[in-house]
């Protein structure tokens, strides 16, 4: 449905996006995970025609972007990172006015606004202006606005940044509903739980480049393994020696150490670490944060 080939973007002689290629098909959620400043928002901006690439090709079906972006946006929905709602309009009017841009007449616009208010659960806030809505409700309104044209593909750029846990869960539910309805989604996030929970496929981005891709589970197992151990108060020499002997991966992490647990040496590794009287020792399942740390040496946030 949407393909991008070798996208580059240069700002003030710095390449902020470097050779990104991707493809997304209907009814899948493609996650783009990376720390702040990795180039996720710029990439997404180029995909819908909001940023003009320095180089590269983008197609949405048979339409070329940015040349035919306006037409492509007839079937695309976009939730931008910032809330650019109309502060002078109520929830209802924000939606109805935007619906008019798609060529709906007054009656159709009002009807569509009403449907969307129900779909995203803003029934009690029809008459409220954006500054009277909480952060979570505002995001839902931006989502509703993106869905006016019943899009085949929706962009969600850091949709839950700054939301409380309940609002995030509620928003995630809406995203899952979207996918279930056959809509493709491109989601950028710097939250690994969000990426892991929602994405069918993930691109890991760092410094403008895609460093790896796959399903969340694939990426974790391939890059880090099933389990990791976090420990503190163990001499570095001992850790280095243990890692070298077992082929484990070791990295300093905050003030602690993070080491992958190699299944065949698991018992031996745990025993060795325990006998070194660590001040802290935690064994847990590996996650995307570990993948990121392994691949880039960087933390996500």
């Amino acid at each position, binding site marked *: 449905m949407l393909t991008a080939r070798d996208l580059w973007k240069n700002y003030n002689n710095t390449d902020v996006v470097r050779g990104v290629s991707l493809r997304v098909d209907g009814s899948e959620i493609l996650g783009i995970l990376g720390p702040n400043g990795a180039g996720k928002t710029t990439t997404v901006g180029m995909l819908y025609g909001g940023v003009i690439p320095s180089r590269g090709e983008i197609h949405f079906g048979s*339409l070329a972007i940015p040349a035919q972006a306006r*037409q492509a946006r007839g079937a695309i929905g976009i939730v931008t990172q*910032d809330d*650019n709602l*109309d502060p002078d*309009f109520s929830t209802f009017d924000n939606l109805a006015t935007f619906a008019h*841009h798609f060529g709906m007449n007054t009656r159709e616009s009002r009807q569509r606004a009403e449907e969307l208010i129900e779909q995203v659960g803003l029934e009690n806030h029809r008459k409220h202006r954006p500054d009277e809505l909480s952060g979570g409700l505002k995001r839902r309104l931006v989502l509703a606005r993106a869905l006016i*044209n019943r899009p085949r593909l929706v962009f969600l750029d850091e949709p839950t940044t700054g939301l409380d846990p309940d609002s995030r869960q509620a928003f995630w539910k809406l995203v899952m509903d979207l996918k279930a309805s056959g809509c493709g989604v491109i989601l950028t996030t710097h939250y690994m739980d969000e990426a892991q929970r929602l994405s069918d496929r993930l691109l890991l981005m760092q410094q403008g480049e895609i460093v790896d891709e796959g399903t969340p589970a694939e990426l974790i197992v391939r890059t880090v393994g099933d389990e990791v151990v976090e420990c503190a108060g163990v001499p570095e020499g001992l850790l280095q020696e243990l890692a070298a002997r077992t082929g484990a991966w070791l990295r300093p992490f905050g003030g602690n150490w993070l080491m992958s647990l190699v299944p065949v040496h698991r018992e031996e590794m745990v025993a060795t670490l325990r006998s070194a009287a660590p001040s802290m020792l935690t064994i847990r399942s590996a996650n995307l944060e570990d993948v990121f740390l392994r691949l880039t040496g960087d933390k996500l946030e």
Partner: protein
Amino acid sequence: MTSGTNEIQMNGPEIAPEPKVPSSLYGIYSVWRRHALIYKRTWLTNFIPPITEPIFYLLAFGFGLAPMVGEFSVGGQQLTYLKFIGPAMIAVGVCFQGFFEAAYGSFIRLKFQRTWHGLLTGPLGFREIFFGDFAWATTRGMIAGVITGIVVLLLGQITFTGLLFTIPFILLGSMVFAGIGILVAGLVKTIDQINVPVFLFLIPMFTFSGTFFPRENLPRAMSVLASFLPLAELVDLIRLPIIYDPTWPLDLMGLLAWTIITTALAYRVIFRQVFR
């Protein structure tokens, strides 16, 4: 086309139909309509106070100064002072309203409310949003010009046909100041910087453009310089029903040039800001 080609197309992968979006002209109208709806909602604060400005000038100077000035002769015409400044105040209304809506309104929509970026997520391109803003600022200038014109008419200082005759000029003038205003919105970095063109361009222009006194009263160099100001050109054109000036085609061309140049520059400057 052979039947073979048809078969290939039918058996090929299912291609979703291309999305249909409204025409560019509809897009411009739809953006304009959005601004108009907000204006309708806030008309008490946005409509009444600014419209009164040229009317107050008209009444204050028209009645206040007239007894001191008496009748005077300009361009071979005997005129009262009120009759002289009537058309100028129509032009001033157009100028201030068109400029302020474009400069402040577009700046706020571009940099504070990020309305432009919001609209760009819909089936609207830069062209539709830009000309929607331009058309709206033009409309604001028109509203101010026509209402001031009606006041001048009610004061008996212009005839109804005279007023009708000036409407195309009011439209052109509104486009000029919309273009200048949007260019300012694109050039300034902070809202306070709009003060610079207001005090160094708009206010001097307001006083030197043959608004309150004939430009011929000025020293020759100043008078020539002032005649290139867009407000001076607009004042001359709107005053045509009262003082005929055979050089009016020059004024008309001057205004067209101001519109095209400022609008084209504004388009480029803001395009680069929005898309970087």
